[in-house]
């Protein structure tokens, strides 16, 4: 794959991965996770479909269980996996709360990020309190404070309308898979301030499966 150099994380990295079911969002998310893990980061992933165990994640069925297990490993200085998958019913909200809470303890009150974290939301629609025109307070806090929390964000979604425009304005990277509807391509062009037609190649007729375009703030399509 030739795009790996473009996947180097940044201090306030906030990525979205947009594509229909089965296009390869989870595979890309796993690849992003591995890159961060190899760089020593912690990765928390919402994994209601239990896809990430096979790529090395350790599954927990509740926030409490995850915090307890990690906390005990810290107290006893035992090895603990930095790849944490939460398979809970609340999914996205749970993993977001966990990542923010850990970011607050490890990074927020210090001058530098001591333990860089990455949060991967595998299905953004599973947030309870968010949509095309609203995000709840916990999400807003995570997005606004992500630099201080040492928290990188990766949101996977099927439709560009699953996040409000105000959130698209602070996105640093977008990984765009083929779109099944032309209006979604237009929506993406608007969200990314691209000229009309710039993402025409995202139509399913023009784009082979498991391929994506990478857009970066300030640099455009790479």
């Amino acid at each position, binding site marked *: *794959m030739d*795009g790996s150099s*473009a996947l*180097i994380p*940044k*201090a*306030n990295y906030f990525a979205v991965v947009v594509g229909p079911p089965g296009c*390869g969002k*989870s*595979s*890309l998310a*796993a*690849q992003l996770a*591995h890159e961060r*893990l190899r760089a*020593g980061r912690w*990765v928390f992933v919402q994994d209601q479909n239990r896809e990430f165990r*096979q*790529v*090395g994640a*350790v599954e927990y069925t509740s926030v*409490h269980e995850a*915090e*307890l297990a*990690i*906390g005990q*490993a*810290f107290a006893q*200085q*035992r*090895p*603990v*996996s*930095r790849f944490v998958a939460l398979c809970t019913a609340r999914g996205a909200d749970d993993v977001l709360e966990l990542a923010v809470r*850990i970011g607050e*303890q*490890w990074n927020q009150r210090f001058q*530098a990020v*001591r*333990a860089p974290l990455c949060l991967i939301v595998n299905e953004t629609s599973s947030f309870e309190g968010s949509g095309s025109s609203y995000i709840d307070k916990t999400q807003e806090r995570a997005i606004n404070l992500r630099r201080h929390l040492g928290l990188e964000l990766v949101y996977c979604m099927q439709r560009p309308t699953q996040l409000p425009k105000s959130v698209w*304005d602070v996105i*640093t990277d977008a*990984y765009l898979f083929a779109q099944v509807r032309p209006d979604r391509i237009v929506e993406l062009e608007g969200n990314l*301030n691209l*000229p009309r037609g*710039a993402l025409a*190649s995202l139509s399913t007729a023009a*784009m082979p499966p*498991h*391929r*994506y*375009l*990478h857009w*970066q*703030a*300030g*640099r*455009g*399509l*790479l």
Partner: protein
Amino acid sequence: MATAAQPVNGTASPAELELERRRNRDRERQRAYRARLRTDDAAPPAPLPVTRDRAASAQPEAAPPVHSRGTLHETPRLESLRVEPEAFADVPPAELELGPPPPPPEPSPAALAGAQKIAGLAAVLVRLTLDDVSARFPQVRELGAQMGAADLDQAKIATVTWAHATVLRCCAKHGWGFAIPYEDELVTLGIFAGCGVYQWARLTGALDRVPGHGDPAAPARRTSPASGAPDPVNDDDEADSEWGNIRLERNDATAKVPAWMAPAR
């Protein structure tokens, strides 16, 4: 580098050797983890990501044209990313700590109020057994008869069923189902007791005699104790008024515990 485990005076047991081997491995992992973090920290800081506003004022030659069609990247197959579950396990750095998980959030005032109402009702219900119901509630026989109970035993069942069903309805109104976020032992006990009686009564058909319960497709009817035939008066809305305040209470999910249900002192 970590030193290999050395037998002390040649007397180290296999268990001790294994322990030492694990310690060395953990130290090695921790060292590697710190090294990675140091490398990451030592790297020149990445330039601040350019926001779109800044991009507009940036030098034009610094960025490729935004209308570039871009390059197609390919995702790896998930299978190609398979690794062992503990592949990314490290000994945590000593300077990091993780506090205990926070206590569960306090219930909202509305939830608390609802819980208290249910707790009050449950407090009565958990004392309510089929054996002592008639002693505590003189109206049981009459109430049971109104619900179609043929004898006192059936009256007890019908009354207790109705009372427990009220708790269930309170739960449903508050959206709690059978999962109680407010961990009150009394509430839980009451709910479980209610569920048990409710389920039993539903299965045995006793619940069908309670107007408003049972199969919604088959409206509840009181039956004549003598003939077992449906009592036609039950089809008359006016007849329901004979339930009086009990009927009103029964329909009000947030009702206080009716006075007649107060436990005997």
